[in-house]
């Protein structure tokens, strides 16, 4: 990817609405409109519209698609019913996480959403390893919007009747303002909400339609980050990377029961051993004492001041009005209530291991408007 930030389909739409554009994952994207704090609180109280068109949308098709994907992911896809999605991980031979993603069974094919910064590598990785009969299509012509918050269902149901019937982690084909859309009840803020895949040429019209609803305001990357941090959700490239296993990352829920027993995915040997004996380190949530945020890159230190881990995400939680962080700490220091010493900018801080999410999830598991 070049250093130049490429324009996404909604580039001028964001600029016209006062979005402050910054380079992210190779694209120019809005970091904020009116301010991170206000946008964060608006999403938790009403509904926020996020442009996540930088993410990679893939179709994986062919009679061997299920088997082929299972050779690369630790998910039990045989249990994934039509129109359902689940969180999974692309793993390397050492059990390290190449990417985290959402995979949906959509009729005869799988629809996968991967991170923007990693999509080119993911595609290359998959093409080299999937059976030759499997066709992988990168849907470059698709845009992706997320509508998140307690009033998202009411706002979206007005434009795309029926979406309110979707339960969390299910999706279906809808029409919104005459445009074809694949809509799932999912997202990355901890709130109820939807992700809406549409053709890039329809993106402006659909975004305008959504933003015109009284409940909805456009929200930038800044609030997206603080929302997902409060929700305890890891961000690839920060909290997850090629050298981190699902056990270390505390993402064992993504390791399906049958797959744990049978293996047959990259890194299984190491992962099975870590599931049994524990790993060296673990991702935990930390509540930081005082008001000063501890940021990504701060060190976890022991009593002698030696580095034993790292903060991978950190900031001020607008909902809690307190600083929070995610960090990797030694496996035996990961119990909730454990005090962790952190060093940032030459200063020591104390964090307490806290169960995540920091702010409770409000997913609509049974469908229906809230």
């Amino acid at each position, binding site marked *: 990817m070049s250093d130049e930030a490429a324009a996404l389909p909604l580039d001028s739409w964001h600029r016209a609405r006062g979005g402050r554009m910054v380079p992210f994952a190779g694209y120019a994207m809005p*970091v*904020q409109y009116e*301010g*991170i*704090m*206000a946008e*964060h609180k608006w999403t938790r109280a009403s509904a926020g519209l996020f442009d996540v068109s930088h993410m990679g949308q893939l179709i994986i098709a062919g009679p061997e698609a299920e088997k082929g994907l299972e050779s690369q992911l630790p998910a039990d896809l045989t249990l994934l019913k039509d129109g359902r999605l689940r969180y999974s991980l692309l793993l390397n031979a050492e059990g390290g996480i190449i990417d985290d993603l959402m995979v949906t069974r959509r009729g005869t094919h799988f629809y996968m959403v991967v991170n923007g910064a990693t999509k080119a590598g993911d595609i290359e990785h998959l093409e080299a390893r999937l059976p030759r009969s499997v066709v992988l299509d990168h849907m470059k012509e698709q845009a992706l919007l997320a509508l998140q918050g307690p009033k998202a269902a009411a706002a979206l149901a007005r434009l795309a009747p029926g979406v309110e019937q979707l339960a969390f982690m299910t999706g279906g084909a809808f029409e919104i303002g005459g445009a074809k859309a694949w809509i799932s009840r999912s997202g990355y803020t901890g709130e109820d909400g939807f992700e809406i895949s549409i053709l890039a040429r329809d993106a402006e019209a659909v975004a305008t339609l959504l933003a015109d609803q009284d409940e909805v305001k456009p929200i930038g990357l*800044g609030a997206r*980050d*603080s929302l997902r941090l409060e929700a305890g959700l890891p961000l690839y490239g920060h909290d997850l990377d090629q050298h981190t296993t699902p056990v270390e990352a505390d993402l064992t829920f993504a390791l399906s029961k049958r797959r744990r027993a049978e293996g047959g995915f990259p890194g299984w040997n190491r992962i099975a051993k870590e599931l049994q004996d524990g790993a060296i380190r673990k991702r935990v949530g930390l509540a930081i004492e005082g*008001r*000063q*945020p501890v*940021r990504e890159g701060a060190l976890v230190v022991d009593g002698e001041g030696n580095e034993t881990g790292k903060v991978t995400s950190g*900031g*001020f939680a*607008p909902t809690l009005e307190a*600083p929070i962080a995610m960090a990797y700490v030694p496996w035996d220091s990961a119990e909730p209530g454990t005090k962790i010493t952190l060093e940032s*900018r030459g200063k020591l801080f104390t964090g307490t291991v806290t169960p995540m999410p920091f702010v409770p999830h409000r997913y609509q598991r049974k469908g229906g408007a809230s």
Partner: protein
Amino acid sequence: MTVYYTREHEWVRVEGDSATVGITDFAQGQLGDVVFVEVPDAGKTVSKGDEAAVVESVKAASDVYAPVSGTVTEGNQAVVDEPSLVNTDPEGEGWFFKLTLADNHELSELMSADQYQTYCAEQE
């Protein structure tokens, strides 16, 4: 009373040999919602360019450098208790600290309001 500005987007209001320091409206706009402020204690001596205070927003941490040398006479407890004052009144109630100037000549290296306005326009 004269107000001077720095390239690091601080303002310095000078009355006699006393100076009040804060960050500009432009700076608070760039930082966004301020959530934490640390100010120096009275009695601390600072040299021009030293890290004198800390300001953190939701998205970033940054240092506030002493725009001039001197001895701190007061840190603003109000912004420590209510960091959002930096956003709502950056060049008034949201000041950071006061100091007694060590060397008036240092002021000549700072920008006037007009010069600072031009400087900001070039940054946008």
